[in-house]
């Protein structure tokens, strides 16, 4: 159906009078943010859309004559039929539904050259708006590699708007794009497509209502009418102007009439749009050679195979953890020796006194206890970076989707949960892409159960105490580590299943996920990401961990015991010791004493503080040969209960690890959960259920182990 003759596009007048505003829109993974960064450089401002936790990124670029142009980077979406809060923001800004963001003067649509047909669906919807549009066809290099020949001049003719080829990653095509953006006048699209006749009456009536009641310009009203008739429009976000009551009534009447017909007119409308797009792409996209499976398809046939896929995933994870133990051992010994030497040197050059003890038993022991795990953290993030940059991580998500669906989790929950292996904070924030609020909340509640990198030093310390012999095969240690990650993941799945059947009932929507082509890993990117993580770890050790170590030393050294008291007596009557004793009745059934209790209290701030606490507590206890600082593991292994029984038995080490798998010991994560859920109700619930689970699971492991004779 061609545009009705009485409808004329609104002239882009305001754009000429003030700094023009471009909205950048595109599908996820089309290179939109790369292009935004390339266009605006560092001239960016990041804030939130009022009322929602969705980033509003605004930047400035310059026309060919040096005049500033405002660019808004809108969240990626496959269609204007929004399925998640961030997609709803894109839809609302483009339709002028947000009072906090004026409707952009012009729209820059980024499309992925390797997947033109799918990307054009959004472009097609945007052209309906009758705004000045530029289409940037990104990743042209990948399209050429894939054997695609894109006749962009034909695409330009079909769409009636400027079409610019580019490679945002390599800065190619940006000059042409800037030139197009600098044009004072842009042609308006003259595209036309056949809306089924049976639907056109509904479109016209709704369009008229939107024009008269909601005061929408004619073309925007038509585009919105088409959208409302195909969209469930279930996602409404704060700041979005609601429909006028009369318009909503007309919409409901048409939907009811269609429901009575028994014909899925909404699907018919979507299909007719796809038919129009297919007609365009058939003329524009030429494929060289055979159209059979490409290299990525062939690899995927094995990597996502129901049997081989799981074997490969298991092997990859095993290799990762074996590497963590085998490659990191030597540099860890170096770091340990260096900190021991530094402590010994300090002791040799300072007289007895509190400052010397603070430096050696507090600062050096506390910081050294955490920094020694740096090599293992480097290896972990190097492997994670490799897997991400090759494209394997998306396949792992694909493999897990079926499993997640069985426990009622949304397929989109996989990425937040995978991110939580590094840190629960980005994991919780990544849940913003999940459409249904209940699914999102379930994912937020279970994401911290995935073993984050802060648990790594705790696991490593306890595994070294569990298996102190150098002759223990590295596979055994790696196996225990993998087991902890598996226990956390199974726990997350169990609680997701439980919450979806009790507190937060609801069916998850089907997942749509894009599998990027396999590619050679960009070593520079992988190493940069790894070094960023390492620097963050060192910065944390040099600031927060150092501060906590100093404070812990004070709490373990004061109030002073009477003259002649042993170190054990000193720490026992210190502030830390008293707090540990206060907690001991609760944790004794788990096999933990007051000294471990001190660690449990302090590590509520962050899990890795447990290692620092053990360093401070047990170095303070170490009496023999004051010139030689004992490695923490050995100090822990000599620790005893008052009746002489060893404290860190293998069973206690396993129980402690289980406790840390489930316990919510991270203040920063709680703060982010509060921010994302809009209150303290859910973070408090999360802390309670995770701590209770940690206690119960530890109790079962310890008491069960004792019954079995361990």
């Amino acid at each position, binding site marked *: 159906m061609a545009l009705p003759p009485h409808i004329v596009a609104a002239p882009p007048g305001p754009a000429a009078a003030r700094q023009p505003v471009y909205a950048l829109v595109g599908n996820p993974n089309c290179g939109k943010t790369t292009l935004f960064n390339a266009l605006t450089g560092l001239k960016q401002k990041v804030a939130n859309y009022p009322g929602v936790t969705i980033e509003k990124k605004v930047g400035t670029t310059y026309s060919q004559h040096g005049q500033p142009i405002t660019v808004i980077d809108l969240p990626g979406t496959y269609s204007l039929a929004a399925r998640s809060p961030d997609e709803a923001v894109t839809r609302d800004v483009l339709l002028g539904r947000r009072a906090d963001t004026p409707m952009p003067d012009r729209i820059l649509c980024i499309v992925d050259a390797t997947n033109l047909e799918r990307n054009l669906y959004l472009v097609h919807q945007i052209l309906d708006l009758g705004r000045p549009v530029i289409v940037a066809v990104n990743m042209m290099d990948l399209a050429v590699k894939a054997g695609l020949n894109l006749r962009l001049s034909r695409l330009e003719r079909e769409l009636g708007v400027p079409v610019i080829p580019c490679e945002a990653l390599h800065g190619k095509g940006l000059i042409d794009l800037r030139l197009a953006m600098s044009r004072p006048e842009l042609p308006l699209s003259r595209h036309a497509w056949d809306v089924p006749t049976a639907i056109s009456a509904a479109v016209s009536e709704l369009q008229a209502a939107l024009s008269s009641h909601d005061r929408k310009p004619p073309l925007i009203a038509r585009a919105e009418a088409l959208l409302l008739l195909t969209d469930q429009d279930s996602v409404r976000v704060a700041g979005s102007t609601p429909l006028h009551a009369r318009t909503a009534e007309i919409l409901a009447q048409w939907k009811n009439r269609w429901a009575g017909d028994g014909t899925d007119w909404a699907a018919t409308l979507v299909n007719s749009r796809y038919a129009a797009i297919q007609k365009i792409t058939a003329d524009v996209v030429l494929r060289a050679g055979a159209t059979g499976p490409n290299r990525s398809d062939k690899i995927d046939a094995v990597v996502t195979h129901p049997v081989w896929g799981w074997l490969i995933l298991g092997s990859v994870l095993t290799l990762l953890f074996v590497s963590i133990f085998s490659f990191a051992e030597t540099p860890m010994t170096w770091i340990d020796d260096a900190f021991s030497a530094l402590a010994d040197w300090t002791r040799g050059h300072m007289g007895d006194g509190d400052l010397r003890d603070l430096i050696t038993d507090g600062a050096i022991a506390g910081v050294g206890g955490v920094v020694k795990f740096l090599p293992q953290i480097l290896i972990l993030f190097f492997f994670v970076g490799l897997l991400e940059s090759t494209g394997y991580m998306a396949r792992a998500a694909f493999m897990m989707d079926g499993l997640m669906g069985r426990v009622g989790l949304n397929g989109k929950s996989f990425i937040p949960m995978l991110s939580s292996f590094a840190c629960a904070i980005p994991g919780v924030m990544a849940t913003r892409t999940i459409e249904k609020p209940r699914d999102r909340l379930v994912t937020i509640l279970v994401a911290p159960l995935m073993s984050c990198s802060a648990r790594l030093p705790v696991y490593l310390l306890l595994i070294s105490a569990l298996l102190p012999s150098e002759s223990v095969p590295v596979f055994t240690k790696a196996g225990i580590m993998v087991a902890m990650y598996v226990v956390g993941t199974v726990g997350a799945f169990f609680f997701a299943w439980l919450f979806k059947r009790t507190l937060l009932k609801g069916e998850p929507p089907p997942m749509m996920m894009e599998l990027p082509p396999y590619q050679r890993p960009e070593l520079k990117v992988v190493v940069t990401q790894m070094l960023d993580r390492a620097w*963050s770890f060192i910065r944390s050790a040099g600031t927060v961990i150092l501060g906590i170590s100093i404070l812990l030393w004070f709490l373990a050294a004061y109030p002073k015991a009477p003259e002649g008291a042993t170190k054990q007596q000193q720490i026992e009557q210190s502030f830390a010791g008293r707090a540990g004793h206060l907690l001991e009745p609760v944790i004794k059934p788990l096999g933990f004493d007051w000294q471990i209790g001190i660690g449990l209290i302090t590590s509520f701030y962050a899990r890795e503080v447990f290692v620092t606490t053990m360093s401070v507590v047990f170095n303070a206890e170490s009496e023999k040969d004051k010139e030689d600082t004992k490695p923490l593991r050995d100090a822990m292994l000599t620790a005893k209960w008052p009746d002489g029984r060893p404290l860190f038995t293998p069973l206690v080490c396993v129980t402690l690890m289980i406790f840390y798998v489930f316990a919510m010991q991270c203040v920063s994560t709680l703060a982010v959960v509060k*921010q994302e859920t809009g209150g303290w109700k859910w973070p408090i619930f999360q802390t309670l259920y995770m701590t209770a689970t940690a206690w119960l699971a530890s109790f079962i492991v310890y008491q069960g182990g004792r019954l079995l004779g361990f």
Partner: protein
Amino acid sequence: MSPPLQTLLALAVVALAAIWLARRALVKKKTTGCGGDCGCDAQKVTARLKQH
């Protein structure tokens, strides 16, 4: 350095550390999210943006 002077200095360091940690925990963050604590590059981006 005499033991009493060492005690005085040690307690001063402890007080400074306590004040710094308390201030860090209590002062409201201007930005949302982790602020880069988790190893993401949020702090780096913010710093760069401030320079310009």
